[in-house]
C-alpha cells in the first residue's frame, strides 16, 4: 500500500511539468490568445445583446400582465391582427425600397468620386459622408422641420412654382415616400464608402485588358466592376437590410407610425404596443418577428458569399 502511494506520488510529480507545459502551449496558441483578446467583447455582447434577446424571448411567452406562461399565444394572436400584417408589409416595403435606392445611389456616387482626381477626392468623400455621421435623431428633426405643416421649407419653395402645398407627412403615400427618402439620404453614404473601397481594389489591368478587347462602358461595369464587387455588395446589402428593417428613430420622429399606421415598422409598432399601451409581452413578440425574416435574408446572402469565397 505504502509503495503504491509512493509510486502514485512519483507519477504525479512526473506528470505536473508535462501538464504545465501543455497549459503553457495552450495559452500560447494563436486561437487561445485570440479568444482572450475578444473575451471583453464577447462578454459585452452577452450582457448587452444576448441577455436582452433571451429576455425578450421569455417576455414574448407571457400574458399581458406578465404573470402567466402562454407559449406561442402572443404570436398566434398577432397573426390574427390586421395591423400586424400591415406592419409586416410596410417593413418589407420600407426596407427593400430604401436598400435598393441606397445601393443604387451609393454605386453611382462611388463611381463619380472614384473618377475625381486623387487630390480633391478626400474633400468630396468627407462631405458625402456627412449625412451618415450626423446622429439620425438629430438630422431627422431637421427633416421634420422641412416637412412641417406650418413652416415647411419644401412647400414654401414649391409655392414659387405654383406647386403644393404637399401633405408630406399627412397623406399615407407621401408619408411613406418621406420616411424612405430620409432613410435613403441617411444610409446612401455608407454604401458609397463601401463601394468606393471595393472599386479601388479592382485591378486596373482588368479594365486595360477590357479596353483592348473593345469593351464599352456598360460591358466594363457588367463584366468587371460588378463581379469584382459582388461580395461587398452582398455584405453591404445584408447589413443595411438588417439596420433598415430595425429602423426606429426616423419613423418615430417623422410620423410616429401615422397617418393611419401607414408608416409603422416593427420597431415603432413594438414600442407603441409594448411601452405606450403597456403590453410588453406583445411588444416583445412584435420585435422578435424581425428575427426569422432577417435570418432568412442573412442565410441566403452569406451562403452566396461563402460559396463564391470557396470558388475563388
Amino acid at each position, binding site marked *: 500500500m505504502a509503495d503504491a502511494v509512493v509510486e502514485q506520488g512519483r507519477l504525479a510529480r512526473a506528470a505536473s511539468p508535462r501538464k504545465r507545459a501543455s497549459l503553457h502551449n495552450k495559452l500560447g496558441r494563436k486561437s487561445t490568445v485570440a479568444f482572450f483578446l475578444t473575451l471583453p467583447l464577447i462578454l459585452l455582447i452577452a450582457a448587452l445583446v444576448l441577455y436582452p434577446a433571451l429576455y425578450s424571448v421569455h417576455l414574448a411567452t407571457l*400574458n*399581458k*400582465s406578465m404573470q402567466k406562461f402562454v407559449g406561442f399565444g402572443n404570436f398566434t*394572436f398577432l397573426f390574427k*391582427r*390586421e*395591423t400586424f400584417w400591415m406592419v409586416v408589409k410596410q417593413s418589407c416595403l420600407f426596407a427593400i425600397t430604401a436598400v435598393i435606392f441606397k445601393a443604387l445611389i451609393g454605386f453611382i456616387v462611388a463611381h463619380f468620386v472614384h473618377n475625381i482626381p486623387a487630390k480633391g477626392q478626400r474633400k468630396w468623400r468627407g462631405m458625402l459622408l456627412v449625412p451618415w455621421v450626423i446622429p439620425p435623431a438629430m438630422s431627422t428633426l431637421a427633416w421634420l422641420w422641412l416637412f*412641417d*405643416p*406650418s*413652416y415647411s421649407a419644401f412647400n414654401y419653395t414649391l409655392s414659387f412654382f405654383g406647386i403644393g*402645398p404637399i*401633405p*408630406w*407627412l*399627412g*397623406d399615407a403615400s407621401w*408619408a411613406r415616400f418621406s420616411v424612405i427618402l430620409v432613410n435613403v439620404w441617411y444610409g446612401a453614404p455608407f454604401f458609397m464608402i463601401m463601394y468606393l473601397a471595393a472599386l479601388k481594389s479592382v485591378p486596373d489591368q482588368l479594365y486595360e485588358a477590357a479596353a483592348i478587347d473593345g469593351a464599352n462602358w456598360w460591358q466594363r461595369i457588367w463584366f468587371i466592376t460588378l463581379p469584382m464587387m459582388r461580395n461587398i455588395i452582398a455584405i453591404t446589402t445584408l447589413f443595411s437590410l438588417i439596420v433598415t428593417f430595425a429602423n426606429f428613430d426616423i419613423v*418615430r*420622429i417623422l*410620423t*410616429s*407610425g*401615422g*397617418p*393611419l*399606421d401607414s408608416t409603422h415598422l416593427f420597431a415603432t409598432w413594438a*414600442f*407603441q*404596443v409594448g*411601452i*405606450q*399601451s*403597456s*403590453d*410588453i409581452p*406583445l411588444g416583445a413578440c412584435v420585435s422578435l418577428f424581425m428575427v426569422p425574416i432577417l435570418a432568412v435574408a442573412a442565410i441566403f446572402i452569406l451562403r452566396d458569399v461563402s460559396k463564391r469565397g470557396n470558388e475563388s
Partner: protein
Amino acid sequence: MSRKTLTRRQFVATTAMSSAALITAPYVRRAYAAGKLSIGFWDHWVPGANKASTDLVNEWAAKEKVEVSIDYITSNNKKIELTAAAEAQANSGHDILQMPSWWPQAYADQLEPLNDVMEPLIKQNGEVNGTVKYLGQSGGKWLAVPATPGSQIKGPCTRIDLMKKYANIDVQEMYPAGSPPKADNWTMETFLKAAEACQKGGFPFGIGLGETTDSVDTAGAIFQSFGAELVNAKGDITVKTDAVRQALEYYKKLISFLPPDAPSWDDASNNKWLISGKGALIMNPPSAWAVAKRDAPQVAEQCWTHGFPSGPKGRFAPYLPYFWGVWSFGKNKEAAKSLLTHLSQPSSIEKFVAVSGGYDLPAYANMTKLKTWAEEGPPKGTLYHYPDPHKQQTLSIAASPAPPKIAQQIYFQATLTKLALRHAQGEKMETALAWAEGECEGFMRS
C-alpha cells in the same frame, strides 16, 4: 520616547463611553436623520417652472431632515413612460415617480396605496373630478396622488379677432372674465359652422388627426359629447351603436374644414399653427399662448382660452392629469407620503400654478379660482375659464369609461382618430366600424 499604559479601569471607561455613543448615535437629530428620498419629476415645458418643485421639496426636506435628490425627466419621446417601465421591471428606482395619466393603473400592483394621503387632502382641498378617480383609483385604493404640475385641460384656445370676423362669435362675451359663461349656444353645431367659416376665411381650426395625445384628446371629448363609446364601463364592445355613427358623421364634416395635413400632426403642430397666425382655434392648454406671448405677442393678445362646445350628451372637456406615485419597492415610503402631502397643500398648489403661468391645474374642487388665472394676460382674463371655475364641463379623458387597461390601448393606438379619419377619407361607415371593432377585440387581452 514616552509610553502611556492603559489601566484596566481606563479601558473599561473608554469602552463604555464608545458603546454608549454608538448606541445613541441614530437618535441624535443630524442634518439627514430621516434618511434619503429619490424623486423623479416631470420636466416642465414652462421655463423656470421646475424651480417651484425644487424649492418646495427643499423646504420640506430641510424641515423633515431628509436628504433628497430630484431628477427632472422629460416627456419628449416618452422618456418618462420608459423610465416608469424600466423601474417597474427592475423593481428599483426613484421613491416617488411622476407619471402621466394612464400609468398608475398600468402599474397598480407595484404602487403603494395612498389612501392615507388622499383622504385628508380631499377633505382639505375639495373633491377630485371623476377622471382623477377613474385614473388614480383601483378597487377603492388610491394608486397615486394627482399632481398639479403637468395636469391640464385641452380646451379651445381661440383667436378673438378671427372668430369675430369670420364666424361672428364673440368668445369674450360668451366666456367673460370673472363671470360664469353664457355658452348655451356654444354647441357642436355652432362649432362646425365656425370651423367652416374660418376655413373659408383662410384660417382653419388647427385640430390634429394624428396619433399623439392632442389629437386623441379632442377626438375623445367630441365622441363623449355624442355619448359614443367604443368600449363601455363593463368592458363590452359598443362600436356599432348610433351614438358612434353620429359622432363619426360629425367628425367627417369637421375634418373637411381642417388643414389637409392634420393627419400628420403631433403635439407641437397645433401650437405652431396658432403661433404662426395661420389658424383661428386650437385645442390646447395655455402653453401655446405662453409661447406666443414671447414669440408672437400680436397673436397672444388675441387669444382666449375657454370651454368646449356641448354635444347632445353634454359638454366634455379633454382632461389629462399627471400623478405622483410611490413605488411599493421604494425605500422611504413614509417620507414620500409626507412630501406628497406637502406638495398638495393649497400654498404649494398656488405656487405651482403661479410659476407655470397658469398652465398647471390642481385636481381639487376648491382650487380652481386662484388669482393667477384671473390676472394672467394679455388680454387680461384670458385664462380665467381655463380651470373650468364654474364647473360647466365634464372633465374627461378619451376612451373612458372603458376599463382603464383597455382604454389605455384605445388611447395610445389612437383608435378614435384613426376611425374618424378612415371614414372621412372615404371608407364606408360599416367597414370603418368593423375595423374598430376588430381593434377593440384585440385590446381585450388580459
